């Protein structure tokens, strides 16, 4: 194909050639500018931008009710513009981040037009891939852009076969049952041919693979014993590596924020709360809780020490272990040291986790005194060998013996999407599917694609096509992908070891990114398509990830800005070019689909005898609520199993809680033994392989959703010296001559980044914290190893699998050092808002 630039040049050749010798000195300026000749030139170089007529505001003034990852809200519209936002009156605790949602829609970082990287446009696929991230982009028409996308999809499929295109496209896409960009992408690709898919996610990658072996369910995305039950029955609430006040702000669908009244009620009860965390976080302060700060990544050793104390002091519930669990007898010799000569005593654990042995013994006693709820966040498993941590937590809870009792047991989702918010008996809304085959037992999962990789292994895949990889008992080969199409995600934020990734990304001949703003990923793409935000299209979604308390009509707030198009429309257009439009749309419009989803829910409601209005009434009202039921308000996780373990067995091979897994034993993985086991991670604070003196905690931020909204005015609520804050203990700061507010450089052998120091005793010595999700802002774009000017902590993290079992990411496994930055400060370029500079 002729490069477009050459074609452009050809079009210009027909024009008359000018000459330097043309003189007009005898023609007065006035006469010339008023001449027909000048008017002709002007017409060619400056077409009129004003035409007679009156603009019509397409959206009437008033309030529009809709929803988002941050909650349901009312948007004020004036003159076609969205001017104000306020949380839904039925939301008990609207997130302060809603202001940032409005900002993001009108951010100067919006992708306005379809764009193509210039070298790609002029020289074709694979051109100058090392310049991705710094190369120019040029605007093209939608037709040109979509023709190019389709040409590439076909070329890659024809040249490299069904595994040539990677469409594992992961990330926090916007909610909405129709404009689910990732399902729509794969729906289109299933019509085209095939693609490489991904499995898992970056949040719970390790836990969601091991928990089915242990508990028979994913566990991490399931309803918890509800808050009113905790308030009533729990005597000791333990948050282990979690910051629920911060992270419950967001939900995968539209959050109901139901955990907040629960947490408030628990606080009011005056019952004790413990936070186990290297940071005395916001939630710990909220509860006025006891703070226990072990060395990071040593939780498993700490739990073993507590378990050992329970066993030797006979505090454990042998009856529960006998009746409800499998394999404690196989784990016990390891715990006592009978099998390896090392008793996992409190003293042994103390050496590793840095807490006094007496503290561990005290915890063993307190955990078994009354009803104890062990509520763990996901940080524990987003670490090297992370599978083992939640497995050991379950083992500890089993020894306490309160799983299935009101107020006791363990929970892996109290910090997320308001797990434990009492539920309603509402229907479940279906959504657009990717057209793949439904996975048995999990209607929301489908298996599609010619191959699947554990998603955090993308860089391994790019570096080692054809190499073997292990994953949950299977051994497969990495496909040789040449193209990727990414939508609803920003891997240049969520993936680890940025510098390694920047280089591996060059393997792609073609990168298509569909988003609404210029993320770092979009900047490293070849073809960039402008999608609308959720607020520029109609959709429908449920409210309350676990409670399902309402269905909300996500009404369009404003018309699409610039040339943005909805995800459904973009993929429908691509499907049309593939000759598959009818198969893609099934002949239905946006509103047809929304009504169809609603009507499917309506049918369920009729069977359940739950009241629901007609679609028209619902759309007019904006939502339909479902009352919380008595059952929902008193739900106790695993109560059924406890009541009758034979009739209500778990989904594990033994039907019981598996403290020892024969299935995992059969896999024979050296890094995932068949019962919870302490293994040294690849690096940890004061560990045998430690090359740097500080652990970097990479927790979820308070003022954004991962990387989303980092480009908004919310940044003012948290930055220090205009950079991501870096919490550092006064002791560590003093040793390095760092003062509060200083710009500091964090570094290790993987990368380097700047941050703003916050000297505080709310973090233990030896640990510093930089939240994940800071926008990647390399001083030298496209150059691996470049200093990051703003604070993308994934410049420092390690990119290895948690183990052969789950192959999940290890975003919390990172050692580094920090120093006061004394060089010339590179300016932050990534937020191009003049007034925010």
């Amino acid at each position, binding site marked *: 194909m002729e490069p477009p630039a050459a074609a452009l040049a050809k079009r210009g050749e027909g024009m008359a050639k000018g000459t*330097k010798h*043309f003189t007009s000195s005898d023609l007065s300026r006035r006469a010339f500018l008023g001449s027909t000749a000048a008017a002709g030139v002007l017409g060619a170089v400056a077409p009129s931008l004003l035409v007679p007529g009156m603009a019509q505001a397409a959206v009437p003034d008033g309030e529009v009710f809709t929803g988002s990852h941050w909650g349901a809200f009312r948007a004020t519209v004036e003159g076609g513009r969205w001017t104000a936002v306020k949380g839904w009156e039925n939301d008990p605790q609207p997130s302060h981040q809603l202001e940032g949602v409005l*900002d993001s829609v*009108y951010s100067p970082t919006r992708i306005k037009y379809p*764009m193509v990287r210039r070298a790609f446009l002029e020289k074709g696929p694979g051109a100058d891939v090392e310049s991705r991230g710094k190369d*120019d982009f040029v605007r093209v028409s939608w037709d040109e852009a979509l023709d190019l996308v389709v040409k590439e999809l076909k070329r890659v499929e024809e040249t490299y076969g069904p595994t040539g295109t990677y469409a594992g496209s992961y990330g926090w896409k916007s909610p909405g049952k129709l404009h689910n960009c990732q399902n729509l992408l794969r729906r289109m690709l299933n019509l085209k041919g095939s693609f490489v898919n991904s499995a898992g996610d970056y949040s719970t990658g390790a836990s969601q693979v091991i928990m089915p072996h242990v508990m028979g369910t994913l566990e991490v995305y399931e309803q918890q014993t509800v808050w009113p039950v905790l308030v009533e029955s729990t005597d000791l609430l333990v948050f282990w590596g979690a910051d629920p006040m911060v992270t419950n702000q967001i939900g995968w669908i539209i959050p109901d924020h139901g955990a907040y009244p629960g947490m408030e009620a628990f606080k009011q009860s005056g019952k004790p709360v413990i936070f186990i965390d290297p940071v005395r976080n916001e939630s710990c302060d909220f509860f006025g809780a006891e703070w226990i700060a072990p060395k990071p990544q040593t939780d498993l050793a700490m739990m073993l020490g507590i378990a050992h104390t329970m066993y030797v002091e006979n505090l454990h519930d042998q009856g529960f272990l006998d009746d409800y669990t499998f394999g404690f007898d196989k784990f016990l010799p390891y715990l006592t040291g009978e099998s390896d000569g090392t008793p996992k005593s409190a003293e042994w654990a103390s050496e590793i986790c840095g807490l006094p042995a007496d503290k561990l013994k005290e915890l063993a006693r307190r955990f078994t005194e009354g009803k104890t709820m062990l509520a763990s966040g996901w940080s524990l498993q987003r670490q090297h060998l992370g599978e083992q941590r939640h497995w050991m937590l379950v083992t500890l809870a089993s020894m306490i013996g309160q799983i299935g009792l009101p107020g006791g047991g363990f929970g892996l989702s109290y910090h997320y999407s308001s797990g434990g918010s009492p539920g309603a008996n509402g229907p479940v809304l279906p959504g657009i599917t990717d057209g793949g085959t439904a996975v048995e037992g999990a209607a929301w999962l489908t298996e599609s694609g010619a191959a699947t990789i554990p998603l955090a292994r993308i860089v391994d895949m790019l570096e080692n096509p054809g190499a073997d990889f292990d994953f949950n008992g299977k051994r497969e080969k990495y496909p040789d992908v040449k193209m990727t199409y990414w939508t609803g995600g920003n891997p240049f934020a969520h993936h680890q070891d940025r510098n390694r990734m920047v280089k591996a990304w060059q393997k792609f001949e073609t990168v298509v990114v569909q988003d609404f703003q210029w993320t770092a990923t979009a900047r490293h793409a070849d073809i960039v398509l402008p999608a609308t935000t959720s607020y520029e299209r109609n959709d429908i979604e449920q409210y309350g990830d676990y409670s399902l308390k309402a269905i909300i009509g996500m009404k369009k707030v404003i018309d699409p800005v610039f040339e943005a198009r909805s995800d459904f429309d973009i993929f429908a257009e691509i499907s049309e070019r593939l000759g598959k439009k009818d198969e893609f749309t099934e002949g239905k419009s946006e509103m047809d689909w929304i009504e169809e989803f609603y009507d499917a829910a309506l049918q369920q409601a009729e069977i359940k005898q739950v009241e629901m209005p007609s679609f028209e009434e619902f759309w007019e009202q904006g939502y339909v609520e479902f009352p919380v039921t008595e059952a929902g308000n008193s739900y106790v996780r695993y109560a059924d199993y406890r009541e009758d373990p034979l009739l209500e067995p778990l989904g594990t091979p033994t039907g019981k809680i598996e403290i020892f897994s024969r299935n995992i034993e059969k896999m024979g993985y050296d890094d995932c033994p068949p019962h919870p086991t302490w293994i040294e991670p690849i690096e940890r604070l004061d560990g045998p392989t430690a090359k740097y003196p500080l652990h970097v905690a990479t927790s979820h931020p308070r003022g954004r959703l991962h990387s989303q909204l980092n480009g908004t*005015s919310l940044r003012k609520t948290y930055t220090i010296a205009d950079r991501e804050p870096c919490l550092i203990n006064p002791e560590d700061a003093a040793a390095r001559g760092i003062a509060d507010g200083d710009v500091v450089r964090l570094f290790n052998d993987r990368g380097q980044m700047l941050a703003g120091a916050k000297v505080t005793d709310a973090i233990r010595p030896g640990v510093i914290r930089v939240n994940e999700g800071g926008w990647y802002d390399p001083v030298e774009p496209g150059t691996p190893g470049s200093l990051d000017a703003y604070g993308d902590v994934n410049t420092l993290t390690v990119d290895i699998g948690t183990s052969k079992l789950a192959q999940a990411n290890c975003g919390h496994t990172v050692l580094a050092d920090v120093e006061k930055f004394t060089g010339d400060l590179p300016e932050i370029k990534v937020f*191009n808002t003049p007034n925010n500079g």
Partner: protein
Amino acid sequence: MLGTSEVIGSPQDLGSAVSEQLSDDERAFVYRWLAGVFARELSVEALAAYRTDEGVALLQHLEGQPALAGLASQLARCSAGEGALGPVAGELAGAFARLFLSAGGRRSAPPYESAYTSERGLLFQDATDHMAKRLNELALTLPRDFPEPPDHIAVQLSVMAELASRGADRGADQAQEELIRMQQSFAETRLIPWVPRFRDDCVAFDRSGFYAAAADSLVAFVMHDVACLQTRGD
């Protein structure tokens, strides 16, 4: 690279260097011409138009205006010779996208009043609303193929062109005086508060030199024109 930006004096210097006032027709011409530069990328066709005899003559005339000389000479340089214009257009399109379409998510100069005058530096803020109302008062609207908010610099310059053109060839009657006041008021409320900062961003971040020069000429011309309107209004 197109080369570095030429050194251009401050607008104040340029203003005093202009000895002759332009007619309203000429002012309308210049405003519309400037609008064209910022409205969208220079196409191969536009560059070719500057290569025609008429185009060359036009640039020569514009180079005679001290405020506009920088931009006119950049255009003359870009369209000079007989080589293919595609690569030049590509280079300029890249610079345009980087500065005005926020490509690369890095240093840019959003060509919208809202970005410079709203508290949070956002698009579609009060300035957008003001401009929408202004266009309605003038019974004008934007064409479908220009899906930009009305506080885009090119729209504001087009409004100045329109007002100047409405004033052309009228005697010094009351309507003419009213039109001059309208133009003064429009320039002072809608352009002067932000175009110098917009220019600063263009100068700081433009790697092509072309748009730095264009923004310099823009500010110099607006400042000069406002001074002239002031004289006429007195």
